[in-house]
């Protein structure tokens, strides 16, 4: 083992958590206290922590996230038993010692066949045509805000996106960073009642506001001392009938109160900028969001 590897083995294990059914509260509590690094994307991780049941329909998405962790990588399953921290640290040390780790799960095929087509083999034709490097280019369309008809980018985000609740798959169409169309393809996974704990709900908002320290403290049972957390949320964002807006729900969660139903939350997303949309979704409890998603999905 080189000195670099020995040094690296002492670092907190970089983990990307994949949260399945019923695992959200325990994963959030694990990362609030353990000496682990919760990676924001699989690119920054070496370990993939899969916790809870993943439905068959999301198997491919799981494999994709798994493959996006750079090799050498290791995937671990966790069903809530003790000693997960040691298991993760052991796995990290094994990787640092030169283990080859898990192989890719998805076949090494481009999203569209393209090689050898076009003048330079790039797969495209003309200015905008074909599938250069395996994908087509975005095309123009209507906008909901200023009427400039620029490109619309459509993608499915989730079910394991770090800024969305686990299990939620949104098919969003963006113009720039503003959502111009949005469909719920799959609702968030069912979670135990514990996931609606106001501390966990407020901590999710704090994380989106760039305050992981206060968020961890809140989960461990302390008070969140942060400057401007409530005022950073725009007034009127994600306003629902009988449930106020995101700022109010956040203030309620900090006071230890849970919000009510979230019906209609997905309709408020159209026209929001991406970070506003993420805040609006995080401002309602997982159970309420699941109900709202089941109604529109």
């Amino acid at each position, binding site marked *: 083992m080189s000195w670099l590897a020995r040094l690296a083995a002492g670092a907190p294990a970089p983990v990307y958590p994949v949260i399945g059914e019923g695992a959200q509260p325990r994963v959030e509590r694990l990362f609030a206290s353990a000496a682990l690094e919760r990676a924001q*994307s*699989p*690119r920054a991780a070496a370990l993939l922590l899969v916790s809870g049941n993943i439905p068959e329909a*999301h198997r491919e*998405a*799981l*494999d*994709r*996230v798994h*493959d*996006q962790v*750079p*090799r050498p990588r290791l995937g671990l399953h966790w069903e809530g038993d003790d000693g997960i921290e040691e298991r993760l640290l052991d796995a990290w040390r094994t990787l640092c010692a030169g283990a080859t780790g898990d192989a*890719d799960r*998805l*076949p*090494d*095929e*481009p*999203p569209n066949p393209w090689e050898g087509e076009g003048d330079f083999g790039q797969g495209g034709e003309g200015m905008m045509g074909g599938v*250069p*490097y*395996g*994908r*087509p*280019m*975005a*095309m*123009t369309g209507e*906008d909901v*805000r*200023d009427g*400039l008809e*620029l*490109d619309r*980018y*459509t*993608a*499915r*985000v*989730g*079910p*394991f*996106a*770090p800024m*969305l609740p686990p299990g939620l*798959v949104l098919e969003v169409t963006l*113009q*720039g*960073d*503003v959502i111009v169309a949005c469909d719920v393809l799959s609702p968030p996974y069912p979670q135990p009642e514990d996931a609606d704990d106001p501390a966990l709900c407020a901590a999710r908002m704090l994380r989106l506001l760039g305050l992981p320290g206060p968020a961890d403290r809140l989960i461990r049972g302390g008070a969140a001392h942060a400057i401007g957390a409530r005022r950073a949320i725009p007034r009127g964002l994600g306003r629902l009938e009988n449930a106020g807006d995101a700022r109010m729900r956040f203030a309620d969660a900090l006071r230890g109160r849970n919000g009510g139903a979230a019906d209609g939350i997905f309709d408020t997303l159209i026209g929001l*900028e991406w970070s506003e949309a993420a805040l609006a979704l995080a401002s309602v409890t997982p159970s309420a969001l699941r109900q709202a998603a089941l109604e529109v999905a």
Partner: protein
Amino acid sequence: MATLLVIAFWTAASVALALALSRLQNRTSAPQAAPFLGGGTPDTHAWQRYHFRAYTMTLLFIAFEMEMMFMYPWAVVFVSEGLKAMAEMGMFLTILAVGILYGWREGVFRWE
């Protein structure tokens, strides 16, 4: 001249470091290279005619910034010219503040 040589030296050193570090690379498979969307997939390339929402602001900004460039030489002679400098720059800034007020009233300092 020393200025240029020093900056050229730092640039060359940093670029050399960046290139040296980028040589350590694995072969990336196609699913691994796909953009990260939390398990989801995109329809198209991310590069697009990107709808930048603050475009009017950038035009205003350029005009304002151009004006700011006059202020550097002004700052150097401010103390020696005294009130004259103060009055002149006050006038200049007032004219430009009108532009900012106008932009604010038209609501350009937001995501359009």
